[in-house]
């Protein structure tokens, strides 16, 4: 069968649609709690986010500043 001549635009369209891409991994919404890996204590809001209130384990090295949801008050005292 003779090859059908396709236009340049059609060729570009086919190439674009057939292009293999890195798969977009869909991540579902989820919820988790991170306990202290050192002593197993839970993490509560009033204790702050950066250090474990019981054993002092450092969860977050940097000092938190005001962001969209995290505020500087979330630094452990």
């Amino acid at each position, binding site marked *: 069968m003779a090859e059908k001549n396709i*236009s*340049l*635009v*059609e060729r*570009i*369209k086919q*190439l*674009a*649609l057939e*292009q293999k*891409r890195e798969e*977009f*991994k*869909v*991540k*579902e*919404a*989820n*919820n*988790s*709690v*991170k306990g202290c890996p050192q002593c197993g204590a*839970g*993490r*509560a*809001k*009033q204790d702050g*986010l950066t250090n474990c209130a019981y054993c002092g384990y450092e969860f977050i090295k940097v000092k938190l500043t005001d962001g*969209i*949801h*995290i505020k500087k008050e*979330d630094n452990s005292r």
Partner: protein
Amino acid sequence: MDNNTITARATTFFKKMEARAGEIMEEAKISGQLVADADKDPYKRSYLQFKGAIIAQFTSIIQKGSTTFQTQVMPNARGLEMIALSQLYNDWNAKIVSMMNHAFEQVEERNLEQEYADIMESYRLAIEKFVCKQCGAKLTMDKFYFQASYIACEFCNTQNTFDPGSKARMMEHIARPLAASRCLKQYERFLEERSQSGRKAAASAYEDYLKAMIQEMDNLLPGLSEQHQNFYERMMNDYNKLGIAW
């Protein structure tokens, strides 16, 4: 060399290039929408690849016309012919650029309202089932979290880490185009004002449009009001000082 031949040859050449560009534009208008509809990638990479390739075709035509004009047309033109040929080239160049812009003007890259509705519905269904991982109490989600956030349980105070998932995270990518599409009336009023009275006189209409768009963005992405305000100020500055309406 005969100057009439130069004019005739240049005219024929630019007409052929214009016809070629016209063919590409007409085909791209139809194919563009087909590709956009068929492309299920969240970032629309196939559509953008198609669009990029078509724009490259137009720039190649423009480049060829420019090179031919500079190396073969003008060096062989004499006297008043040069003025006529310059005008011919400038008109041709403007036409090709206009075609390049028109090729994708009417293409709806994504159905933003539908995407927004899908995102919010997925989010609503997701948060209904979320409970505190420590005590099992229902978590209070008082707003739309478009990125991973700490949610404190109101009963046991445990910090839960909530990740809204890929779909909700896409909200940041579509917020501005969605907000702009919802303020189309203000935008058209600004365009009309600008075409009738000029850039400076239309500044207040542009400001109205921007304020409406920023308000929509604040509603879509809660918590980013300060960033949106900075964005608004940058846009107004660009318009007033550089005359650019983004």
